[in-house]
C-alpha cells in the first residue's frame, strides 16, 4: 500500500511566479519542490510549490517580501 501525506500546496496564476518562488524558497531554505498542480486543486498555471504543512507562515512572508503573487495555499494529501 502506498503512503500518502498532507502537504501545503501553493498555487500560482503565472508559471514565471511559480519558477521564481522555487528559486526564492531554495535560497531561503524553505523545504519543498515544484510539482504539477495536483488534480484535487483547480487549474492555476499548472505548476505549484509543495512544502510541509508547518511552512505556511514562512512561505507567505517570503512571497510577500519578494513581491511574488500566489493564488492559493491549500493542504492536499499526496502520495509520497
Amino acid at each position: 500500500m502506498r503512503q500518502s501525506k498532507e502537504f501545503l500546496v501553493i498555487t500560482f496564476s503565472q508559471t514565471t511566479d511559480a519558477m521564481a518562488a522555487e528559486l526564492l524558497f531554495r535560497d531561503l531554505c524553505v523545504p519543498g519542490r515544484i510539482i504539477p498542480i495536483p488534480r484535487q486543486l483547480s487549474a492555476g498555471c499548472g505548476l505549484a510549490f509543495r512544502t510541509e504543512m508547518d511552512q505556511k507562515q514562512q512561505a507567505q512572508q517570503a512571497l510577500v517580501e519578494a513581491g511574488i503573487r500566489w493564488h492559493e495555499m491549500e493542504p492536499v494529501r499526496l502520495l509520497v
Partner: protein
Amino acid sequence: MIQVNALGDACPIPVVKTKNAIKELHGAGIVETLVDNEIAVQNLTKMANQKGYGVKSEKLSEDQFRVTMEIKEGSVSAGEESAQETQECLVVPEGHKKNVVVAVTASVMGTGNDELGAVLIKGFLYALTQQDELPKTILFYNGGAQLTCEGSASLEDLKSLEALGVEILTCGTCLNYYKLSEKLAVGGVTNMYEITERLTKADLVVRP
C-alpha cells in the same frame, strides 16, 4: 430501463457504452449492462461509485455478468467530466498489465524554452510517481542521462519509482560522452542492445 450488451467487449468499451446509455436516459432510470469478464464489472462498479449511482452486480453464468446501475434525478453531471473520470480503464487485470516504457531522450521536455523544459521534465517525472499504473521501465539516453546523475532535481522521484519496482536504466555510452559515468545516482547502466530490446518489446513507448 436501458439494456446494454457489452459481451465480448474489452475495456474501456463496456464503460463507454454504459455512459452513453446513461446519457440517453435524460434523467433518472436504470441501465443494465451485460459483460463477460470480472474486470469490466469492477470498472463499471468503480465508475458508478465515482458518479454516485446505485450499483449492483450479479454473476449469471461462468462468463456472463449483469451490472445494474440506478441513476437518480440530478445525478447526471452534464458535461462535467474531470480528466480522472474520463479514464475508463480503472482496473487492469493482473498479468495483463501493459509493458509501458518511458524513453527520456533529453534533459528538458519539449522544445521552445529550456528553462521551462527543465521544469516540465521535472514535473513529468514527479507526476509519474503519482500514477496508479507505473511504467515498467524508464530509459534515459542522450541528454536524458543527466537526469539520473548527481545534481539532478529528479533523483528523489526516480529513487521512489525504483523503490516501487520501476526499472531505471541509463545509456552507458551517453554517461561516458557527458563524462557522467562516476555520477550516476539512481538505477543501472545499460547499452544499445538492451535499450533496443526494451523499446521493441514494449506495448507502449512514452516519450515526454
